[in-house]
């Protein structure tokens, strides 16, 4: 029998069927293997087992795909958590916040299984720990930076991607490049309230039941029901959805270490305002002892707290502070600033809070901190919806062409075109005033 099978397989021309040929070995060898060890399998049987294994894998894949589909189709109970009033900007509710005053005052005496209580105040300000300020976002106005899609400038100087709240400067370098530099962000606390009214007309329900006659076989009843239609005065509802942008962190850049040349402003109508009494705004030179004031003016609404210490910036990125028992090591890098045009744009506001109807002065200081002459400098500020530019309030310390045009938020885009190129170390100051809507 074995010989017949072997002869049969030997008569099969090449290529042999993979199920019946295994690396050139005949069935006799497998028979010997079967006889010697009792655990080897015939190639056909092995192929059958391989098919079973593949089938199991395929079914496992099918089950995994169906399980994944079921998991993806499941949704969290958004309707009960994220959609309650205040969900858009209400404070988060981490576990353990549900506490009464008495529980909050217990402090560390709380049971160990309960999370530590949050800082609790009956009156006064509060912000959740671990969340970057300003918070909550819906109570602040922002202006500056380049959020959303990045701004791009075409060869004909057409600007694309300038969105609400963006403040950028673009300039040309001596080697033919057109570069874009955004400013920092300015945050102003200016909540505004609206209301929604619903009028409900009380429906009249009158039911008259006359006295029934004792003689009558049937009592006469009258049932009047008057339903007065409710009136509805429908005004135009809002349909537009605007993007909410997170506040970026303040980024400071350093040049090549050379001091910027003192550039006192002479073309202003007024002297410097009190909130502009910062050396970097007056002369363009950074003073370390004014760093806190500058940061406070830049992110005007952010409270200057103890954790906002000196920041280390390497390659325009904030360095990580490592603490531990290991030896501290520091790596310093030196940028080769040759052929490195750079424009620094700083924006500050006169106040950190404003009520609707109040005015806010903005000051933009720009300096050439690179090593090239910069030309065709254009500064653009797209005001957010709730900032209304006060006409004829724009000032510039350098000769510049000022123009405005509407933006998509029914506000204005302010545009300054600096007439003359700026030498390295030189700079200028722009100023304008807005009314908070």
């Amino acid at each position, binding site marked *: 029998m074995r010989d017949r099978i072997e002869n049969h397989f030997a008569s099969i021309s090449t290529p042999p069927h993979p199920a019946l040929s295994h690396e050139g070995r005949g069935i006799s060898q497998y028979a010997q293997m079967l006889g010697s060890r009792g655990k080897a399998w015939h190639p056909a049987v092995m192929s059958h087992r391989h098919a079973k294994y593949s089938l199991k894998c395929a079914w496992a894949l099918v089950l995994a795909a169906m399980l*994944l589909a079921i998991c993806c189709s499941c949704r969290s109970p958004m309707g009960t958590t994220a959609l*309650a009033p205040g969900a858009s900007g209400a404070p988060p509710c981490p576990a353990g916040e549900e506490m009464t005053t008495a529980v909050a005052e217990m402090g560390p005496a709380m049971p160990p299984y309960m999370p530590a209580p949050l800082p609790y105040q009956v009156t006064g300000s509060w912000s959740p720990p671990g969340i970057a300020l300003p918070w909550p976002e819906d109570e602040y106005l922002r202006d500056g930076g380049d959020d959303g899609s990045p701004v791009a400038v075409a060869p004909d100087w057409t600007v694309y991607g300038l969105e609400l709240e963006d403040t950028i400067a673009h300039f040309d370098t001596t080697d033919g490049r057109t570069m874009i530099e955004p400013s920092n962000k300015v945050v102003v606390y200016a909540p505004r309230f609206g209301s929604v009214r619903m009028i409900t007309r009380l429906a009249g329900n009158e039911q008259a039941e006359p006295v029934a006659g004792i003689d009558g076989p049937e009592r006469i009843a009258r049932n009047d029901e008057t339903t007065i239609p409710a009136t509805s005065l429908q005004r135009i509802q809002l349909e537009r959805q605007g993007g909410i942008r997170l506040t970026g962190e303040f980024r400071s850049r350093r040049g090549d270490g050379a001091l910027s040349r003192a550039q006192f402003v002479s073309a202003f109508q007024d002297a410097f305002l009190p909130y502009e009494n910062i050396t970097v705004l007056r002369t363009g030179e950074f003073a370390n002892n004014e760093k806190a004031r500058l940061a406070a003016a830049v992110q005007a609404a952010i409270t200057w707290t103890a954790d906002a210490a000196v920041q280390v910036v390497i390659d325009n990125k904030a360095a990580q502070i490592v603490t531990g028992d290991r030896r501290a090591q520091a790596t310093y890098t030196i940028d080769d600033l040759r052929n490195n045009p750079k424009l620094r744009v700083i924006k500050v506001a006169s106040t950190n*809070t404003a009520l609707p109807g109040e005015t806010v002065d903005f000051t933009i200081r720009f300096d050439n901190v690179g090593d090239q002459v910069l030309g065709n400098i254009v500064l653009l500020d797209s005001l957010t919806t709730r900032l209304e530019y006060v006409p004829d309030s724009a000032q510039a310390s350098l000769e510049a062409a000022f123009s405005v045009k509407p933006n998509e938020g029914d506000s204005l885009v302010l545009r300054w075109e600096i007439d003359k190129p700026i030498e390295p170390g030189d700079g200028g100051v722009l100023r304008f005033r807005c009314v908070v809507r």
Partner: protein
Amino acid sequence: MADQLRLLAIPSRVRQERVARTVAIVSLVVLFASMPLAAQTPKVHYRYQGNEPPGAIGSMQLLRGGPLPGYFQPVEIKAPSGALISLAVDGAFVESAKAPVRVGMLIAPVYRLRVTNIPLHEGEEVFPTIEIIDRIYPPVGEVTRFPIPIELMRDDLELALEGHYITRVVYLEDPGQALPVASGGKEQEWFDTGPGTNPVEIADRLGRPVAIIRMGGRVPDLRSGADAQFFAGSPPFVPLSADCRPLVSGPVIVPAPIHTATATDEHVTPTAYVKAGPRAPAKSVIPSRERQPQ
């Protein structure tokens, strides 16, 4: 034998693999085709309706946690020029003050007001309620500069006098959806919703609801005694000055004793929904037999 093995095993294997492969491909296609469906916003169910009983939404807000319990949110109650506003303490209204009135209110309790001397409606009274359902978080030192404006508009007061029930949800506007209109010094932006709509839901879409004003519902009946439900327990509040500085060291917290009707209650006779005109003579509470001549 080999033929039998090949005929029996190979076609079955091929068929099973083919079926499994087909099912796997179909499953993956269905999975990827259904992924956009999972990304879409599901239909939402708003827990809170505009016709919730006063205090219900605020109570639920407290259960959500956060620094809400015990916080006295500064509130500025505005009314038409000349109108007088009175808050309830100890189950009775205190002396009226000219609008605007600034107080610090707790979140969740219901505050009952009395508005009198309404222009062109002198002699009539409206008793609105205010329910604070969320707070705002001004910077340090600016808490009292940014009260929540509660505007009792003349239109609302007149509608309430005509028998309408007004529900006004005050919300903090989302700057990303702000209306491009200037509202400095004027009344806040508002709009009407049609009947059958949920004003809380609409306000939540436009921002963050912080307060609910209701008026036109009930009038007090002080002749028959104290109405604890009408005053909603007279929750404490903190009177604030014109610049929203506390006038007293602590909140006005007075225990609510049982109030008995006396003849002096005549001056607080409810006149809501009653047009100005001669009042009916006051009824004496003295038993008639004592007034009979001897």
